């Protein structure tokens, strides 16, 4: 007796399990896994089509539970795949808010090509939104700034690594060397603090 048919849906569930339990922010896109699941879906679907057409000609209802089971397996695989893609796209969106408009190189390697395009499109939409949202003031508001209500106009910061030259809005050039301390306007410097280049000292 051949046990060729096994319980479907295992490979798709593995995809989700790996994603959930991975220690990295975004693990590498599991190309192989996704392809296997897609092939499994195709195989189940073809079997079902063949069986349904034979039912149409013979009217024999005895194989209906098998048809139903395959249909449930198809839906299950589809659900797992979609949830996998959706979870990854959610994480890519948080990437934009945390890292800014440019993804670091090693994270970028873990994304597949359509995901990189998704990130760029999302960045573009966010930029357009921010532009339009601040219409009354003439220029857009930066939503990624001021995530907590600011308490003061200027803040004291210490530089954590060599960043080089940084130009403020009024044209003043600051040279950011490691361990140097500066007293800078909060609005322009907040993004650097969130990136870890500067550290806010009380």
């Amino acid at each position, binding site marked *: 007796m051949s046990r060729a048919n096994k319980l479907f849906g295992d490979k798709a569930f593995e995809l989700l399990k790996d994603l*959930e339990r991975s220690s990295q922010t975004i693990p590498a896109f599991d190309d192989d896994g996704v392809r296997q699941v897609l092939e499994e879906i195709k195989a189940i679907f073809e079997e079902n089509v063949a069986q349904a057409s034979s039912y149409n000609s013979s009217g024999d209802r005895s194989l209906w*539970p098998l048809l139903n089971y395959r249909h*449930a397996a198809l839906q299950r695989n589809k659900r797992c795949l*979609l*949830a996998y893609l959706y979870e990854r796209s959610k994480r890519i969106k948080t990437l934009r808010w945390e890292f800014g408009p440019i993804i670091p190189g090693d994270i970028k390697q873990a994304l597949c090509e359509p995901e990189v395009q998704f990130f760029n499109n999302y960045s573009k939409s966010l930029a357009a939104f921010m532009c339009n949202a601040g219409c009354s003031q003439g220029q857009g508001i930066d939503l990624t700034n001021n995530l907590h209500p600011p308490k003061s106009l200027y803040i004291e910061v210490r530089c954590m690594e060599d960043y080089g030259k940084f130009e403020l809005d009024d044209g003043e050039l600051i040279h950011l060397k490691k361990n140097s301390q500066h007293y800078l306007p909060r609005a322009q410097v907040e993004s650097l603090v969130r990136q870890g280049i500067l550290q806010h000292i009380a």
Partner: protein
Amino acid sequence: MNYFPNYYSIEDIFVTQEKVECKVNTKLQRMGFLDAGAEGDDLEPGRTVNLPLWYIKELKVNNAYFTVSVPDIYKNVHKAVCEAETTHIELGRLHPYFYEFGRYLTPYDRNHVIGRIIFETMRQRVRHLLDISKNDGHMAKSELRLDNIEAKLHEAGVRTNTQYINWLQLTGNKILISELVEEHQKKRKRELSDDESDSLPSSKRATL
């Protein structure tokens, strides 16, 4: 914590992956692969098979093919234990998704006890959760005490509590580095130090 099971929610997919024991009622042709120990191609009536929840929940509750048997953890023996010492039970060890799984199984329960068990357990444990999430220190107990929903609630409670304390002590005003960036930097440093320790024996570092 905004959790409601939806199509994309990963917890829901995990819960529906659980297997439930069912008894077969009628002969099902060519479904023999569902049963590990069966010999023929067809599924014989009277055998018990372990079927995944995502298949069972598609069928009607009173369908003619299977009778779903409720797992022991929701039966009366455990019910007495649950009522006696609710807060001390290691719910995580009984089942990591105790409440969600029970919720899916309530339609199949002839005695209508599951709903009440889940509700009563949750009611008692929420009070206890509130107390331990106000505790500043780390959880000394094992990880298995809380089920999935309770663990999320606990986490949310701890987070809210720290935010509240920071606000009271006026320490929360610093702009902090974002969490993801911090993890990323730590990982990079770890990789760099790994690389250095690998290459040191083979090459000399140039010193200025």
